[in-house]
């Protein structure tokens, strides 16, 4: 009886050993195959890519022209682009990447988003009351959004929502104000605005026509007190070719630009403004805006 039990135990032990040996053998062979394959098929990935990516701000905004920070880092290590193209990174951050890769950073002049509309609720009239989704894109689908000026800012703040950098805030008259220190010129607000009011401009170009109204004559001042009436005074007094009247709107040619405050002095409505980090400075010749509250709906 005891012998039989011993035999059973022995067989059990052997089976366990066989199982261990068989599985061990199979896994060993496979491990060797994989180890060899790993040697043969090893892909060299530039270790600098990850390091450079860590130095980048991880905003993935696309302002550099690449889909995100990782592709930008790849292009950087290949020498296809320059660290200065990143508009989000701080000066120190750009220098750090440039030093790491042994490059000299070619900085571009800082660009910021600027709004070509100054028609806040205190100067621009609404002709209809919009009661729908609080979004410019939705409102603009319904007869342009109800504002007297078809081209004007609707003020629901799609740009404020879309801005990843907290650089846009709405002021008390429902106009977006860009904090130029925070703005990285990623272009998200340019894309989202249904009225195409934002554009990316060099920060050093402080002169801006803050209007897109294409109508002509003083009648449009009824709709918005700071509209461009296409009077042409600015164009006449500016250096030749710097300001032109195109389709009833003053347009500044930034390729032929001098930073001077003369045009804002000449503008009778205050449509041409001097941008100073979010503040719109107007000339002294135009009628000053003292109204604080919104203009009434519809009536004239």
């Amino acid at each position, binding site marked *: 009886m005891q012998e039989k039990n011993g035999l059973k135990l022995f067989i059990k032990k052997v*089976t366990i050993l*066989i*199982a261990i040996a*068989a*599985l061990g053998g*199979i*896994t060993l062979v*496979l491990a060797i*195959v*994989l180890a060899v*394959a*790993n040697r043969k*098929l*090893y*892909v060299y990935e530039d270790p600098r890519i990850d390091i450079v990516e860590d130095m980048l701000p991880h905003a993935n905004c696309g302002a550099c022209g690449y889909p995100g920070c990782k592709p930008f880092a790849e292009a950087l290590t290949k020498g296809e682009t320059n660290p200065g193209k990143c508009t989000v990174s701080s000066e120190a951050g750009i220098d750090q990447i440039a030093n790491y890769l042994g490059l000299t950073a070619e900085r571009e002049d800082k660009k910021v988003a600027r709004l070509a509309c100054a028609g806040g609720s205190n100067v621009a009239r609404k002709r209809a009351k919009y009661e729908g989704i609080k979004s410019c894109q939705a409102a603009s689908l319904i007869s342009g959004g109800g504002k007297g000026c078809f081209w004007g800012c609707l003020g629901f703040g799609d740009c404020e929502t879309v801005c990843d950098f907290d650089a846009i805030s709405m002021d008390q008259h429902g106009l977006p104000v860009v904090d130029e220190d925070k703005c990285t010129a990623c272009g998200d607000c340019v894309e989202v605005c249904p009225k195409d009011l934002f554009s990316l401009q060099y920060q050093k170009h402080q002169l801006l026509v803050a209007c897109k109204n294409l109508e002509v004559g003083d009648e449009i001042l009824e709709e918005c007190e700071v509209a461009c009436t296409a009077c042409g005074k600015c164009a006449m007094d500016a250096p030749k070719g710097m300001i032109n009247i195109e389709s009833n709107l003053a347009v500044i040619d930034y390729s032929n630009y001098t930073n001077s405050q003369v045009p804002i002095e000449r503008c009778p409505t205050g449509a041409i403004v001097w941008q100073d980090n979010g503040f719109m400075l107007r000339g002294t010749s135009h009628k000053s805006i003292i109204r604080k509250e919104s203009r009434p709906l519809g009536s004239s």
Partner: protein
Amino acid sequence: MSEEPLWNIFINASLVNNFVLAYFLGICPFLGVSGKLGTATKMGGAVMFVMLISSMCAFGIHLLLEAIGAPFLQLISYIVVIASTVQLVEMFLKKMSPALFKALGIFLPLITTNCAILGLALFQTNKGYNFLECLVYALGAGTGFTLALILIAGFREQLEYADVPKVIKGTVLTLIIAGILSLSFMGFSGLGN
């Protein structure tokens, strides 16, 4: 079983008892990687390759386990073999075609736990196929899988441009197409056993 002609095995595995549409094996890549025709074709190729290799290995391992009297290790050994093969394919793809590697994404390592492949290894053991038959069976199963993937990818690409009701857009529509495809593959059931 050896009286079954090879072409019969092939047709049986690829059409009549299509792994995806008749057995419902390997559904996750079938739904997950079938968005684009190109990716689907290559995924099918990768699965077919893994099927062939693991079928061969499974045949050898089955013999080995029978010889040492430990057939209870079958399942776990198959899993190990399949996992290693997938690892091999992954390395190969990463080296040869990084774009495809990225496109397949998580579904490439998921081939490891693809039930179609483990199912193939177990079926062929159960049916007692010889080596050549195993290869043909694996080839048939791989072809069937690729065929199903290509068919549904084609449908889905076309439907991207179609104006379908909003409620069934996306996953729902994919599942409906899969059902209809499965239904139509029922028609092959008269062909064999």
